[in-house]
């Protein structure tokens, strides 16, 4: 008897979790529907966001979301890879745990702190010491130059990408380390046995063995970067337009929702458009997370 009640409780709690996500998807899709009905598919292809004329399009935010997330992953993955090599192969055994834990603590710092610190401390430094040299170095090139053109701005798509990179770095590093440590010791030892150097063993034995899960870890980082809100809102510059230069201000889906949802009238086209944006963000993150989960689990199972 007690067991029957207990089993029902267990089942109900599990079902509740299913229900929450189901309701979340349904509500986001349903609430944003009026915007899609009004603007049609053009909602996703126009870059105009004008509350005065009631014309709303998602293209510039989609663009900003993808570009910041891609910058973040491109910067964070190689650095995480290096730190993972350090933690699994180079670092003295006694220091591995403390250094690993300290890097993990970076992941615990709330995103609003990254936003504040990014906006008030890091953004001016990035503009002066990273953007300016990049502009000087690359802006004269034909096509590529466009991407690095313009006066350095403290608040830009580039700054947002760098801050996001710092935020996803510890996650990716932790998953890399976990994967690399699961490589059978026998494999690495036989490579050492034929005279391979530490780096050769890492590159030719450990990394190929864990490659699928490591790609999955990168995807998980991408998924986190896509939906990160507060840090991006602080440093992206909040301009709803598409610029060819990554040093120009932009906006992401999450930052626009954070900035504008509070002032949208209930029942207004703007509110529906923001909810439709939320649905789009959910679909994108869902796809990325589903792929990353599949990649990570297929390796570990």
């Amino acid at each position: 008897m007690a067991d029957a009640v207990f089993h029902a409780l267990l089942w109900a709690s599990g079902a509740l979790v299913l229900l929450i996500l189901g309701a979340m998807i349904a509500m986001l899709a349903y609430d944003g529907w009026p915007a899609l009905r009004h603007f049609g598919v053009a909602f996703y292809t126009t870059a105009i966001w004008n509350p005065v004329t009631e014309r709303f399009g998602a293209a510039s935010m989609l663009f900003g979301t993808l570009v910041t997330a891609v910058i973040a992953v491109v910067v964070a993955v190689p650095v995480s890879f290096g730190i993972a090599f350090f933690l699994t192969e180079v670092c003295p055994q006694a220091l591995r745990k403390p250094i690993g834990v300290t890097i993990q603590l970076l992941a615990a710092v709330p995103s609003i702190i990254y936003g504040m610190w990014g906006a008030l401390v890091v953004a001016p430094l990035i503009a002066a010491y990273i953007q300016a040299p990049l502009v000087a170095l690359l802006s004269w090139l034909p096509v590529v130059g466009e991407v690095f053109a313009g006066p350095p701005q403290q608040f830009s798509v580039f700054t947002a990408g760098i801050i996001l990179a710092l935020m996803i770095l510890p996650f990716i590093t932790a998953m890399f380390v976990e994967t690399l440590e699961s490589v059978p010791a026998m494999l690495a030892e036989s490579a050492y046995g034929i005279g391979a150097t530490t780096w050769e063993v890492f590159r030719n034995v450990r990394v190929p063995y864990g490659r699928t899960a490591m790609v999955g870890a990168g995807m998980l980082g991408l998924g986190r970067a896509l939906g990160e809100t507060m840090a991006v809102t602080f440093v992206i510059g909040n301009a709803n337009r598409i610029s060819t230069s990554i040093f120009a201000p932009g906006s992401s889906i999450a930052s626009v929702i954070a900035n504008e949802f509070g002032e949208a009238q209930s029942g207004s086209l703007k509110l529906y458009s923001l909810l439709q944006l939320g649905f789009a963000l959910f679909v994108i993150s869902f796809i990325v997370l589903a792929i990353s989960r599949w990649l990570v689990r297929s390796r570990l199972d």
Partner: protein
Amino acid sequence: MTTLSTGRMNRRLATDKVVKGISTTFAVIALVLLFWIIWTLLYNGLSAMGLSTFTNDAFGRPQGLMNAIVGSLLQVGIATVIATPIGVLAGTYLAEQGKGSWIAEAIRFVNDVLLSAPSILIGLFVYTLIVIPMGRFSGWAGVIALAIIILPVVLRATEDMLRLVPTQLREAAFALGASHWTVVSSVQWKAARAGILTGLLLAIARAAGETAPLLFTAFGNPQFTANLNSPMATLPVQIFNLTLSADPSSIALAWAGALIITLGVLALNITSRLIIALGQRK
């Protein structure tokens, strides 16, 4: 021949050295970042912090964070009380009865999505679910949003930890004629206690630092209130609003708030790691 292969050997050893050097540099940079953040917070936060920070609300003179600190404690606390039993039970369901059933697989997948889904979407969801029907922003809406943040972390920790409990323990209990409930409550949960507590602390730390899901749910309130039916302040949202202001004293107070929340969150994280470390030593 010998010279040629020595040359190649030297090159291989040199590459090894260079890569080790670069990777060490990256690790040092990551460590420096954490200390840089903490140093910035201490430097800007301590000088702005005074007794009034903890005794005045945002309308006070000088303005303080008392409303936000109490609001955060209250909402995170209630959210924890709501989400923990559900998360533990659902995690137990997956560990105990979730072998090969499609519904368990679905729950596991959905939970992983909830775990990594953009937290601002949880804010939008709770806005349509609670704020619109209630007709106003409220502390309760904030509580529900935070509970949805905590739930998947607790669920995942519970399932993972229960799977680590040796099968012999439960089999011994079953052999004594114990019911399933007794086995789970007095053997499984007891054995996994430390691990579940660790997950719970991490979940609380995460909820305490969240801003995005609270913007359109609890909304914020410059005045002190303990009434969950009214809009309510939280530390992260108040920090956000203070930073948007052009007033230097508001920004200074924002740093003080940032210091409080970061130290709190890091303390929870370190405690949870200590629990694991002490558990392993036994």
